[in-house]
Each structure stands twice: as C-alpha cells, then as structure tokens.
C-alpha cells in the first residue's frame, strides 16, 4: 500500500464496482483526485464481495446492474455486505430510477451510511464527492430524481397522506440528505420554520421511538411506496 505523502483529512478507503471500463476508470480518477484511496476497482459483484472481505474498505461504490444477468447484482452484493460488514458505507449507482431498488435498499439491516444516485449525477463531480462524504459519515443520500418520482406516487395513501405539501417538501429534502440549515436555504424559509415543520412531521408519522427519528422519518417516507 503506497503511503500518501499528504493524506486528505477525510481520506476514505474505497472499492469501486462497475462493469463498464470507461466509467470504472472515470470513477477511480474522480475519487483519487479528491484524495481518497481506491483499494480495488472491479468489474462484477463476485469480485466486489471478495475484495470487500479482504480489504475492509470504508465505502463501496457499486453499479446496480452488472454481469452476468444485468439486473440487480450490485444491489444483492450490497445487501450481502450490509449483512456481513454492517459498518461499511454503501453508495449504489443506477442508470435509471427503479422503485423496487429503494425498498430493497432500505429493507436491509441498519448499519453504515447508504446512498442511491443516478449515474448521471457523477458528472457533477463536486456534488458527487459531497454525497460520498455524507454516506461515508453514516448519512442516507437518495437521488433527487428518485425522490421526486416517489413523491409523485405517494400522494394518495400511506402514512404520508396526513402531511401538508410543505411538510412533504421538507421531508423530501431530508431524504436527499440535507441538513436543516440547507433545507432552510433551499426553501427560502428560516431554520426555525424548518424545525417546526420537522416537529410536525415527527408528530404525524408513526416513527420508531428507539431509533434516530430523523432517519426513521426518511425511511418511512421512502418505504411509503405502494409498490416498494
């Protein structure tokens, strides 16, 4: 293992799994450029599991659709990692929004941070690296596009029916991993107003009192899909 002369403050040990060579190389370049250490870059889920077992990275970045069946190998590998090494943060990349993914993703056991981004997002390098940091720090990051599509489906029924439009908006931003301060900025309201909305959300949703209420609220939100 080469010893970096000037390790960045939050340097992470990362494994990248992506079957398309171009994207794999691109991801490695971006992550290394930011000062992270990519301990392995692999083309399929089997290799991902092997290297994860051997290298114990801080974070795994994996494509969902990989060989041999090109369906959800990456997702299943992520579930396995979550079960065997719950402390490893997981960032999933997908070419498209599939509702089922979100359900499966959040159905996995609690552990390190988890993220679900569309591949297009990686091009916004600064945002992508920011998401990587948040997930590595234990946060939950779900792509804004995914969240928007889920919101469209969620109006009708489920535990979210009692929320106001404004509260739902706040919850959606929470799901994207934003802090109260960032939400206030995005909604052009005061942080106090955001806190009031969040208080209402906590009161209205059937949340698990023993877990982090904020995480629990986001999970309720993301699981509220009729299909997921």
């Amino acid at each position, binding site marked *: 293992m080469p010893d970096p002369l000037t390790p960045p403050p939050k340097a992470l040990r990362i494994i990248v799994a992506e079957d398309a060579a171009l994207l794999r190389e691109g991801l490695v*370049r971006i992550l290394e450029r930011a000062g992270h250490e990519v301990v392995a870059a692999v083309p399929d889920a089997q290799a991902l599991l092997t290297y994860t077992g051997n290298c114990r990275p801080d974070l795994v970045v994996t494509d969902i659709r990989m060989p041999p069946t090109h369906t959800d190998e990456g997702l299943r590998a992520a579930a396995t990692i979550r079960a065997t090494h719950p402390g490893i943060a997981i960032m999933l990349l997908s*070419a498209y929004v599939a*509702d089922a993914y979100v359900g499966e993703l959040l159905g996995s056991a609690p552990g390190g941070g988890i993220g679900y981004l569309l591949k297009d997002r*990686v091009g916004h390098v600064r945002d992508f690296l920011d998401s990587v940091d948040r997930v590595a720090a234990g946060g939950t990051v779900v792509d804004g596009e995914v969240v928007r599509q889920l919101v469209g*489906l969620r109006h009708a029924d489920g535990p979210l029916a009692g929320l106001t439009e404004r509260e739902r908006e706040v919850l959606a931003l929470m799901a994207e991993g934003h802090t109260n301060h960032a939400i206030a900025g995005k909604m052009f309201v005061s942080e106090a107003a955001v806190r009031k909305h969040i208080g209402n959300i906590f009161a209205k949703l059937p949340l698990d009192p023993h877990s982090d209420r904020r995480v629990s609220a986001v999970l309720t939100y993301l699981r509220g899909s009729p299909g997921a």
Partner: protein
Amino acid sequence: MSDAWTAVRGRPTRFLASAWPWRSLAYVGSTVPVGVAWLILLLVVLGVGVATIVVVAGLFVLAGVPRLARRAASGERRRLRLMFPERPANRPGRVSGPEIGVMVLLATVFWPVDAIALVMLSAPIVLLCAPVLVRHDVVDVAGWRVDHTGEAWAAAAAGLGALVLLAYAVTALACAQAALVRHLLEESKARLAEAVQQLRRSRSGLVDAFETERRRIERDLHDGVQQRLVALTMTLGSAELDLADGPGLDLVREAHHQAEQALADLRTTIRGIHPQVLTDHGLAAAVHEIAGRSPVPVHLRLALDGRLPSAVEAAAYFFVSENLTNVVRHAQARSAQVQARIEDHALIVSVVDDGIGGADPQAGTGLAGLHARIDALDGELDISSPTGGPTQVRMTCPIR
C-alpha cells in the same frame, strides 16, 4: 328453413309448402346444362391438348385444365347457395384435387343422373295434365293408356301422388349431391384455416423477433453510447474543478451541459425503444417508473407476480405510457388510475382518469400503433370516453 335435409325429415305439409322442393329442382335442373357444358369443354380441351401434344402446344392447353377445374369449382360454390343459402361460399385457395374431382363428377355423373330425375319428373306432370290432354288424344304414360275422362282423373290423382314422392326424391338427390360437392370443396376451407394458423404463428414469431431486436438495440445503446456519454460528463466535470474562472471554464461548463442534454435525449430514446427497467425488472417496476414521471398523480393497483412474455410486457408498457401521456395532454384530469391483473391466462391493464373525456380513438398515431401492437398479440383494446368523462382505456392480451 335451415337446410333442405331437415325440411325433408320434417312435417310433409310444411316441406311441400317450403321453397326446398323448388330450390332442389333448380339445383338438379341447372346441373344438367352446366354438366353438359363442362363435359363438352373438357372433351374439347383434352382433345385439342392430346392432338397437339406432339407440337408441344398441347402441353399448354392441358396445363389449362386445373384452371378450368377452378372455374368449375367456383361455379359450383355459387350454385351451392341454392342448397345452403345461409352459408357464404368460401373463397377458393390454390387449385386442389377435389376441385378437379368436382369438375369430373359434374361432367360425367351428376348431369346424367339429374337428367334421368328430370325425365322421371315429366311422367307425373303428364298424368296430372291427363284430364285436359285426354280431350285431344289418348295419353300413354309408361304403358298406361288413358283414353276416357274418368280414367284421366284417376291418372291425375296418381300423378299428384307421384309428384309428391318425386319432390322428396329430387330434394334428397339435390341434398346428396350438394353435400358431396360441399364436402369436396370444403377441403380447401380446412386448408385456409391451416394457412391462418400458420400466419398467426409467423406473426407472433415476428412480434417476438421484433421485441428481441428492440432489446438488443437498447442494450447496445446502453452499453455503448450511454456509457461513453456518462464518462464524458465525468471527464468534463473533473475538468471544471481544475480550471480557473474564465472563458475556458465557461466553455467546459457549456460542453458539460450539452453532454448532459445528449444523455437526457438518449435516455428518452431508449425509453421509447425498450426501457431498461422493463428489461431488467418487468412490467410492475416499469409502470412504477412511468407513474413516477407523470405530472398528474397516478394511483397504481398492480397485481402482477413474476415476468410475462416480453412482447406482452412491452405492449402493456407502451399502452400505459401512451395513455398516461394522453391523460396529461388532453384529459385535464386531476388524477389517473392504472390497474393491471392476470385473469384467465390474459393480462388486463386499464388506465382510467377523472378528466373531461371525449377522447377520439382515431386521433393520433400513438393509439393506432398501440392497436397494431396489441392486435398482433391477439389482444384487444377498448376505449370508452364519453364527453364529460371519465376516459377509460383497457387492453386485454392473452398470455401464451
């Protein structure tokens, strides 16, 4: 009056008052000239053909025989309507052996038999007319000399009885003959049914091949162009971090934006060909995705387990996609509902909205294309859209 044979076996008064004896008479009667005409034509053609066979021309003449048979058969089909008025004559296919058989029977057997029947029919008619004829001359029918009025009336009575018997006989003859002709000619109907079966098979094969090809194109685009574009946006995104503010950075940002546009366009195109989520996860996941994109809230009620044949999944996907697009564009709806379930080995999908209705099924190429797609799978498409709403569109598609 469903058919002659039923009438023959029914009440005599009813049978005699019906059109069947007359139809049968017309059938039998017309067989004679038609049969004679075919006999002459056949003899001439065969004669000329055989005579000129040494100069090769005869071969061409003889080659015309099957065409004659076809003409004869189509004429017979038309004449069959006398005996089977409710059954439309089926359209002839290729010239078949049975058609030649019908022509030969017509030219050699049918007309002599029918001619004998007609000659026999003349006897009771003469007997029936005996009271009139006897005034002028002695009437002699089959060795029975009738020479005075009293006997003439008895002859008329006997003639009436014989006429009734002959009405039965002629009808039975016509029935037998028509049934034989029909039996021979309907061979081609079975062939037609087989051809339809084969067409249907090849059509569904074509639809499957079409769907496979679309999936291949989708995968090629996804694995090729799309990956390259994503890689390009990553490179450009990295470049943005390296560049200081200035015209260079602006250009790279512009290029990044353009690459993203291209990616978005490509995504839309792939969605129109065969969406990835449909390939990977099936109909339910794909419908969730469409519903998620829809600006009008969509309620889903999907009772779908496992995967369906890919052509059916694709048809259902495009059905939902097209109809939700229409809901957004035309219906002024506040919400829409998509239902899907499997019932009796068929997939039933419906899209209902609470909009203004009045949708025209003829308008737009989208629905027409959808119709063709579903049709090719032996499915059905129903649209109900009264003015004032609601619009309800439903597809039913068998799952083989």
